[in-house]
């Protein structure tokens, strides 16, 4: 049996060497790649990407790791394989010409073969051996040897020969990838997993709500730790990418730098400085509360600083966003022209979550933006996976990725009227750093928008509600009226403010009137006082006059008496004034 017992503490265990596949994410899961010098079985149903996995393993080995490879195909001709590979960006023919790769197509046609007597598959060994030796291949792909079962009758012989083959490959020290189609109740149709026990990888694709999600799982990896989860993976233009969630740690660097939200009033609510750079921001609200507009402001501000932005839209086309934002005075088109802004619009139902994620990853790689907007997260739930966990996982991965890159992420989420406003369907609210809640307040026959900062980690944010106005010059935040009548917004606020102004005016007028009246009284009193003073002065003068007259008169009487006495010749004058 090939199954040899491996002592977990043996020397071999400690020095098990890995052979990097170069497949994005796979080497992370397997902590380095496939077991070097051993065969690995890649199994899965039709169309799950087994062959592509193998080809990518060879092509990347030849191109990126300087390892030559032999491709032994039992199903597809060399020309077909080259075509398949070119769709992933690998030029097999060029690799063949430069002696880095050799492709051999082994074909067996039952109709032209008769069997009589004993035989073995030495011919196959010789062909594989000569393919390996021709370029000194260290990697090999067998795709898929099970096809032999269709061409030869002697199953028992085939089994023992395949077992011998895998053993032989192991002895030769080539790292082999062997593919196998999944059978009923078995990993492969003919159970060749029995003979390949070093590493088994299962590929799978599942249809959920009309959208296919591919998944990969490392079933077994002898002598090595490996990620045991099911990982979504994608086949896209750059090859396979596996997306390990759990391999991402929480060790990203953080920044103390702040960036403006683009809305002065909002910055004011966030200590006057705005968001932290590299943080993730969630804006939730019902339809039409201005989530996208807020995002556009952030983008506009970032582009104005000369930073690159990436806008993922799941609802609107780029042109639609440009037009709508122009209506509130934000000209995003100029940033696109300058190459600072990239708007990526996709229907959420266009493909599965994973492809969305990979598209995002790729665009992040390409553009290296400093601000990323995802608008809205919620539609991802509607497209494809109804499984909230999947969406949460995906969002977690986006957030993690952005944090790793130090990119500020702005996500919007739609809450429907019936839901609790302070909960998001995707349960992502706990993952984000800053959460803005946008709300409609209905009163007096109108709806008005208000904004709260529900949370903002690491800063003393405002706890107030602000009224959110969309004007021709963009979004403005006004302090909502907070008074005895409660929170007033919109025209109610305006009316209340007008009323207050009126009252103030009234009060002012009242006091002015009183001032005038009082001063008038004062002036009257003063006038009275002046008149009285004049009377007093007049009386005084009269009194003085009377006194003078009286004195004059008494003098003249004395004189008259003396006169009369003189005239009467009455002696010498007697003392005056007596006995007259």
């Amino acid at each position: 049996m090939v199954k040899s017992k491996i002592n977990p503490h043996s020397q071999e265990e400690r020095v098990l060497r890995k052979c990097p596949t170069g497949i994005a994410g796979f080497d992370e899961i397997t902590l380095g790649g496939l077991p070097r010098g051993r065969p690995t079985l890649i199994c899965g149903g039709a169309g799950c990407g087994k062959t592509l996995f193998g080809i990518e393993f060879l092509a990347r080995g030849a191109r990126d790791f300087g390892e030559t490879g032999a491709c032994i195909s039992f199903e597809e001709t060399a020309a077909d394989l080259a075509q398949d590979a070119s769709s992933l960006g690998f030029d097999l023919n060029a690799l063949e010409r430069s002696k880095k790769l050799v492709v051999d197509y082994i074909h067996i046609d039952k109709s032209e073969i008769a069997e009589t007597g004993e035989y073995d598959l030495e011919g196959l060994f010789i062909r594989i051996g000569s393919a390996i030796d021709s370029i000194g291949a260290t990697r090999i792909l067998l795709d898929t040897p099970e096809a032999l079962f269709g061409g030869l009758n002697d199953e028992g012989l085939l089994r023992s020969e395949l077992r011998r083959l895998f053993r032989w490959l192991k002895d030769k020290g080539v790292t082999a990838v062997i593919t196998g189609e999944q059978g009923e109740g078995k990993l492969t149709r003919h159970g060749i997993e029995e003979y390949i026990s070093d590493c088994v990888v299962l590929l799978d694709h599942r249809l959920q709500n009309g959208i296919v999600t591919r998944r990969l799982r490392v079933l077994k990896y002898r002598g090595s730790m490996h990620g045991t989860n099911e990982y979504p993976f994608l086949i896209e233009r750059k090859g396979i990418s596996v997306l390990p969630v759990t391999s991402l740690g929480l060790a990203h660097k953080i920044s103390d730098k702040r960036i403006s939200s683009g809305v002065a009033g909002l910055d004011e609510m966030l200590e006057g400085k705005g968001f932290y750079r590299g943080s993730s921001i969630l804006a939730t609200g019902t339809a039409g509360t201005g989530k996208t507009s807020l995002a556009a402001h952030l983008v506009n501000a970032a582009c104005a600083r000369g930073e690159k932005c990436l806008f993922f839209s799941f609802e609107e086309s780029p042109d639609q966003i440009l037009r709508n934002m122009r209506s509130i005075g934000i000209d995003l088109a100029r940033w696109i022209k300058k190459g600072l802004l990239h708007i990526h619009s996709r229907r959420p139902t266009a493909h599965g979550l994973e492809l969305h994620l990979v598209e995002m990853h790729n665009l992040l790689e390409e553009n290296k933006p400093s601000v990323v907007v995802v608008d809205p997260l919620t539609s991802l739930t509607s497209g494809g996976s109804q499984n909230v966990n999947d969406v949460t996982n995906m969002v977690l991965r986006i957030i993690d990725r952005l944090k790793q890159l130090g990119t500020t992420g702005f996500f919007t989420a739609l809450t429907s009227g019936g839901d609790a406003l302070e909960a998001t369907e995707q349960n992502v609210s706990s993952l984000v750093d800053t959460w803005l809640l946008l709300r409609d307040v209905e009163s007096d026959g109108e709806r008005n928008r208000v904004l709260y900062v529900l949370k903002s980690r690491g800063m003393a944010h405002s706890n107030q509600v602000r009224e959110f106005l969309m004007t021709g010059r963009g979004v403005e935040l006004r302090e909502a009226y907070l008074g005895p009548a409660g929170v007033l917004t919109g025209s109610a606020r305006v009316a209340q403010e007008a009323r207050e102004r009126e009252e103030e005016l009234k009060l002012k007028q009242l006091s002015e009137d009183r001032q005038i009246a009082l001063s008038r009284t004062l002036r009257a009193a003063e006038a009275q006082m002046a008149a009285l003073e004049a009377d007093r002065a007049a009386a005084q003068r009269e009194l003085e006059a009377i006194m003078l007259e009286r004195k004059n008169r008494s003098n003249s009487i004395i004189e008259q008496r003396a006169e009369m006495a003189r005239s009467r010749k009455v002696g010498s004058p007697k003392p005056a004034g007596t006995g007259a």
Partner: protein
Amino acid sequence: MAKKREANSTFEYELRLYVAGQTPRSLQAFANLTKICEEFLTGRYRIEIIDLQEKPQLAKGDQILAIPTLVRALPEPIRKIIGDLSNKEKVLVGLDIRSAR
């Protein structure tokens, strides 16, 4: 071991026997083949022995996997018989041989 019978221009039956070294099974196959040919195709056949251990690149052309493999190159279409050719009836059917008469 590689030898040609009657190195003339063309024969009705062009046969190639692929082997890998002189294993007992290969020798057995060659012996069985010569016996059948002498009995049914006297003078109308040629056998070419190809040892893949010496010329491994030749395995590709006739898509050889099993050893030994007998290929009937002529008359067309190509037919292959794998095994040590121990069953005479099967070989005759496989080579589609009508007895010469």
